[in-house]
């Protein structure tokens, strides 16, 4: 049976991390996973809507979820932050169906008033990582690997929202997750364990508390290097922005040259399927990914 998802691309993959959009497309096509892009969806608010009002975060994302519901498909994200925000709204509104129907009625009243489909609570919100590990399956993925990433040491960087924003995490322990590491092994790479993999990249502070933000990112990159990593791999484009695009500034704050490539999750998996680095946008990173490609002989 073909896996099919309502694909929520998010802002960053359509902007500064276009290579994430490209690589998710390439990977899912190669695996025969069908994505129906939600062209009418909107920004999840990245946790910021809620700082203005909970009702704002819930209503805007109830609309996003309802777009997937109208296709009878699970909503697929490829961003830890989108997953944590939309996934948590889904949890909260599903709970409200039982505990607080008046609140749900308020959310749906606003949706109906603006001509949007109401939220039904009939689908689920799923990150690409979980779709690969749980729906497609590790063994099935292993069988599709044509270019084992042998010898490549990968340090996961999960992103806070993927691990701790939802009340119930369906696939991982929030303090000691393993799904990224299982994927690394499935594609022939070697997982590197280091403390930073479950920590914060510092992105939410980067527009106004740059020193603190870059100190945070820098500490994790230093640790990953000290643990022998050839690259960081992340399922979150916001982490990617702070770890990759700001890495030159991070280097200045920690006073050390780092130069550690930061790959998006689908880029890594797609490399193992023999998809070309160019198609995956691996030339579009601030920190060159050449050392990874050299190591793999691609």
């Amino acid at each position, binding site marked *: 049976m073909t896996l099919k998802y309502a694909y929520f691309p998010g*802002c*960053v993959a*359509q*902007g*500064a991390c*276009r*290579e994430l959009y490209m690589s998710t497309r390439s990977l899912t096509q190669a695996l025969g996973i069908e994505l129906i892009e939600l*062209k*009418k*969806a*909107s*920004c999840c608010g990245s946790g*910021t*809507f809620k*700082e*203005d*009002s909970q*009702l*704002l975060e819930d*209503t*805007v994302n109830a*609309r996003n979820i309802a777009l997937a519901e109208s296709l009878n498909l699970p909503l697929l994200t490829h961003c830890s932050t989108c997953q944590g925000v939309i996934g948590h709204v889904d949890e909260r509104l599903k709970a409200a169906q039982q505990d607080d129907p008046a609140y749900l009625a*308020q959310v749906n009243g*606003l949706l109906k*008033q*603006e*001509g*949007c489909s109401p939220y039904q609570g009939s689908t689920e919100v799923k990150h690409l990582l979980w779709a690969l590990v749980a729906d497609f399956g590790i063994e099935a993925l292993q069988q599709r690997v044509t270019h084992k990433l042998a010898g490549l040491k990968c340090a996961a960087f999960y992103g*806070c*929202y993927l*691990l*701790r*924003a939802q009340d119930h995490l369906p*696939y991982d*322990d*929030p*303090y*000691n997750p*393993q799904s990224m590491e*299982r994927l690394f*092994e499935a594609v022939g790479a070697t997982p590197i364990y280091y403390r930073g993999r479950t*920590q*914060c990249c510092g992105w*939410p*502070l980067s*527009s*106004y*508390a*740059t020193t*603190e933000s870059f100190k*945070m990112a820098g*500490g994790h990159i230093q640790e990953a290097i000290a643990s022998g990593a050839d690259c960081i791999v992340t399922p979150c484009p916001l982490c990617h922005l702070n770890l990759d*695009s*700001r890495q*030159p*500034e991070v280097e200045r704050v920690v006073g050390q040259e780092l130069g550690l490539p930061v790959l998006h999750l689908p880029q890594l998996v797609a490399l193992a399927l023999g998809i070309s680095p160019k198609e995956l946008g691996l*030339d*579009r*990173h*601030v920190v060159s990914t050449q050392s990874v490609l050299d190591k793999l002989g691609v």
Partner: protein
Amino acid sequence: MQVQFKVFRQTVDSPARFQTYALEVEPGNTILDCLNRIKWEQDGGLSFRKNCRNTICGSCSMRINGRSALACKENVGSELARLAKIQTDAPGENSATSEIPTLTIAPMGNMPVIKDLVVDMQSFWDNLEAVDPYVSTEARQVPEREFLQLPEERDRLNQVGNCILCGACYSECTAREVNPDFVGPHALAKAYRTVADSRDSQTEARLEQYSEGTSGVWGCTRCYYCNSVCPMEVAPMEQISKIKQEVLDRQDAQTSRPIRHRKVLIDLVKEGGWIDERKFGLMVVGNSFRDLRGLASLGPLGLRMLARGKFPLMFEPSEGTAEVRSLIEAVQKAED
């Protein structure tokens, strides 16, 4: 059943080490029961804080298998189940190992160790004091009888009132690790308790104080660690969000960059459904060309992203922009 406890040991000015103790236990034994037995039966020198044994006093907070928790609340059975699940998930670990299960116990983070599992909590208390966590009635005429509150006014204080000041949130706070000025989630949760209290007469001054620089609410990175480890479901990050809501209601985008960050984000979603990241940087950091230093600080980032083909040259609005815009406006109207 037999289990091993791998316990962090350290005295001031000596290197830390782990010491292992074997113990015959029942799954229902709490971690604190086990530590007590180690202390009483095997090693009287092991130090840890404890008191009520009943999730009330908040004394026995420590890192249990990788996250801060109360030793009197967690038990051997649930910890072993958690470890077994992680083990099955882990790559290359398909069969259960025959080794004796090991529980790892370490002191809280973000505070210096005094001895073994006992940390110096001075900064924790100082930071709590810094938010003035007392209901202030100074500006008011003291009534002849006590201040009255409606039940619904009192209900707003319940969640934060559950805080037992155990330090678990502070221990895992990622902002504290890099920012010594940040007062921490426990303090801001208590801060919200005073903001929400109908008897307090200092709300405006408090909101000013709590939104200053990055010592207060804007220092939070929203990493969710505090919510995740809190044994009392106080959800400090939610309380920080509620303070932010009060601040955002009162202050405009020109007040500070963190506030501009929030306001601009909503404006841009109304404008294009998705965020146009080019405008976001210009408007938040460059303050729409009013902050030239901020603008200049973006220069190297912009150039580097351009050079690597990473700079978004185009922006395609969502096909649902008009709908999202009117929806956001409807929410804003409903909340006015």
